[in-house]
């Protein structure tokens, strides 16, 4: 199945990419997807522990099971205010 990944803030500088599409296996989790993305964009791996992950408009943990067409956001710690 296919999901979309969006990068935000300086993650875009690391990936030189706003948004990408990935094929993942059925039953793949958000954690699996994050690992695949870090393989594709090694600079993101440095931020592994501080990366925030959302599916749609909600935060999700690594064990969240993805569905076809999901839109994933990966981004660094937020800084509003």
């Amino acid at each position, binding site marked *: 199945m296919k999901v979309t990944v*969006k990068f*935000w*803030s*300086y993650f875009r500088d690391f990936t030189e990419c706003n948004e990408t599409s990935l094929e993942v296996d059925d039953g793949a989790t958000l954690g699996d997807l994050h690992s695949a993305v870090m393989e594709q964009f090694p600079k993101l791996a440095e931020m592994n522990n501080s990366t*925030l992950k*959302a599916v*749609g*408009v*909600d*935060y999700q943990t690594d064990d969240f099971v993805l569905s076809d067409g999901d839109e994933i*956001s990966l*981004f*660094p710690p*937020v*800084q*509003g*205010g």
Partner: protein
Amino acid sequence: MKTQLTLSPEPITEVPPAISDGMGAVVVFHGVVRGTEDGESIAAIHYEANEAMARHQFELIFTAIENQWPVESIRLVHRVGEVAVNEASLRVEVIAPHRAEAFAACQFLIDEMKAKVPIWKRAVR
């Protein structure tokens, strides 16, 4: 609880609070862009928002407040795009019957925003 959420590049203008019967406390917070970032002089801060998610996360925080405190109304404006030094990037207004809950809700809202709402900044030199 009434809420009003604005994410906009427009400067924040002061609006008088709309007090209704029984409300005894209004707390307003302005976050203002300071002239230095990590010790270096800056001209402005550029704010980027993941807007759909930011709106949703703000709504979740508003609901958490409504479940904890008897708050009458929350109005929040966060600017996006470039905000010059000495201008406000954030305005939060909380109206409640008493000051304790107004202060508590306002501080909770800002703390939660800083942990969860997808807005990022970039210094403009």
